[in-house]
């Protein structure tokens, strides 16, 4: 079912959790709400569910205004981060709960309920476990029971709050793949909340990137990764080098340098460049090494690291406080003999984003998120 969110605003005791958010979710879509903690993504999910009520704005389910409907009447399936299974009930009773509590007139008879439960058990691959109690199941199994329980009522929309948050890395990856296949099979309109960009990019049809109670960008995984709309999206999805630049007469120059890095607007758009100070966002793998000084940045290699098929360089550039991180294919790096610590090289951004300079405090927070690449090294290494 289509879900349409129109100018939703949510305040908690004066604090604004959502700032007039609008979003259209198409029937059958798998959508990720992605953002750091405090970005309002869970609040938005709970508003769709009817577990919270908005201060202003409305929510439409298939063209019908559902804003005033209670959670019971919305017929949504909700999967909680910590499953919220009923501990005193067997797996069977947990899944059957939504059907058993229906009014007599619309309640299926016992045989039908049992049939439905066994169908769902097969769907979530938990056949034979119907007599177990939740405490006798692993985390991944509990998660699937929670999903089956939510699906039992044939929900109009399936909502998942950090569905894999409490699971370990390997189980998480398996379940992710499995959920993708399940969605392809059942075609439920699904919204899930996550702070894991990899999860969002791998799983979702469209990603909604949120920050500080507002939507930064909505798009397919490729769109949001390749063409981030804001500095926030650039840094939250993957990592990026932030270079201070100034623009004059259509030329982008690194702060303190005379060489022009580029003369066109980023990513092939034909907008004219606005003069002034700006920030250039370049992903580590969007740099290329070059031989001529034209459009190139000169630097000295400070560190070389190779892992899982790629090589990472840390390059010092005169006048820049931070090192520039460059990544390339490992076999590609082997070919160029010039790569050694202390060597002088020239690099050129192949693809970049250009945004007007933020205030000083914003630049500071950018600096903090620059720590990100290192965190990712650790994660990649472990996985």
């Amino acid at each position: 079912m289509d879900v349409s969110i129109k100018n939703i605003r949510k305040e908690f005791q004066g604090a604004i959790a959502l700032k007039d958010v609008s979003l259209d979710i198409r029937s059958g879509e798998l959508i990720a709400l992605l953002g750091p903690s405090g970005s309002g993504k869970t609040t938005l999910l709970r508003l769709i569910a009817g577990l919270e009520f908005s201060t202003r704005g409305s929510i439409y389910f298939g063209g019908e205004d559902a804003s005033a409907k209670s959670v019971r009447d919305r017929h949504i399936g909700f999967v909680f981060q910590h499953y919220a299974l009923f501990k005193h009930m067997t797996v069977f009773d947990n899944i059957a709960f939504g059907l058993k509590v229906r009014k007599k007139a619309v309640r299926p008879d016992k045989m039908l309920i049992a049939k439905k439960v066994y169908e769902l058990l097969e769907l979530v691959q938990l056949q034979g476990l119907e007599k177990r109690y939740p405490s006798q199941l692993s985390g991944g199994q509990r998660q699937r029971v929670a999903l089956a329980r939510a699906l039992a009522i044939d929900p109009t929309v399936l909502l998942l709050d950090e569905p894999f948050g409490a699971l370990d890395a390997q189980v998480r990856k398996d379940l992710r793949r499995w959920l993708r296949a399940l969605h392809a099979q059942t075609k439920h309109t699904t919204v899930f909340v996550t702070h894991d960009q990899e999860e969002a990019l791998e799983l979702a049809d469209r990603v909604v990137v949120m920050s500080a109670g507002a939507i930064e960008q909505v798009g397919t995984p490729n769109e949001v990764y390749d063409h981030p709309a804001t500095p926030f999206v650039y840094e939250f999805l993957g990592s990026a080098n932030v270079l201070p630049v100034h623009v004059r007469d259509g030329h982008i120059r690194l702060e303190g340098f005379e060489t022009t890095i580029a003369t066109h607007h980023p990513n092939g758009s034909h907008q004219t460049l606005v003069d002034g100070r700006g920030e250039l966002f370049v992903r580590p793998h969007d740099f290329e090494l070059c031989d001529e000084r034209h459009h190139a940045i000169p630097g000295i290699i400070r560190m070389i690291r190779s892992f899982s098929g790629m090589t990472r360089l840390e390059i010092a550039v005169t006048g820049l406080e931070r090192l520039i991180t460059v990544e390339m294919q490992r076999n590609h790096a082997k070919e160029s003999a010039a790569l050694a610590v202390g060597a002088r090289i020239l690099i050129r951004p192949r693809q970049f984003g250009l945004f007007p300079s933020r205030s000083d405090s914003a630049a500071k927070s950018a600096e903090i998120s620059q720590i990100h690449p290192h965190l990712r090294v650790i994660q990649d290494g472990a996985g």
Partner: protein
Amino acid sequence: MKAMRMTLSAAQSQSWFRAPSILPGFGLTMGVTIFWLGFIVLIPLGALLFKSASLGWTEFWEIAFSSRTLGALKLSFGTAFAAAMVNAVMGLLLAFVLVRYQFIGKRIIDAAIDLPFALPTAVAGIALATLYGPNGWIGSLLAPLGIKVAYTPLGITIALIFIGLPFVVRTVQPVLEEVEVELEEAAATLGANRFQTITKVILPTVLPALLTGFALALARGVGEYGSVIFIAGNIPYVSEIAPLLIVIRLEEFDVPAATVVAATMLMISFSILLLINLIQTISRRRFGRG
């Protein structure tokens, strides 16, 4: 070599008795535990059984099954059971209100629940007797309706309700606090109404704690003396509780008779507690934690 074998056998002899632990001091603390339990609980109870056994079977039987003893035991356990049942229901409600709602004066109400713990029971007994007596504030209102409270089992039950309330509230309250709001939200998303959520989700979750509270209130009620004797009127066969019968027999210097009543009470109480524990073990094994 010999020393080694000895430590080895010591380690082996420990392994069937207790699981390995890095905490030192097991021998000392276990020793103190057993000594204390024996000194404070088991020796007095043993002496009681020993004393009553000195009578011989036929005499024991005669006293235990005399109509006066039976009447007192029936009254004690009956009123204690009724009071514990009432407390289980009302205590759960009170605990629910204290956990779930925020209101002015909540802390005062929370503290007031402990008053029956703190008050000397005789004071409570006198207060209740005055209130519910034929000329008391409440007693005089009930009398025209034909309801007699003082000097009847009803009065005893009221006194035991007063005494047992905090046991239920204080055992259920922390467990209720731990029931995740998410469980209720999950029930609501699945279409359950408030009533179904409470009866099918919340109640079963707090049931083990409620049983504990019920058992504590029951045990307290069975043994209660001070608050009851003033309101009971102590009419043999009607409103004479078993603990009072023991005191009466002691005052008559009939120690064996007193110990027979006491031993019978002990056995009944023990069986009830065992049964409640059994129910709890079964339900706990089912839910587990997770």
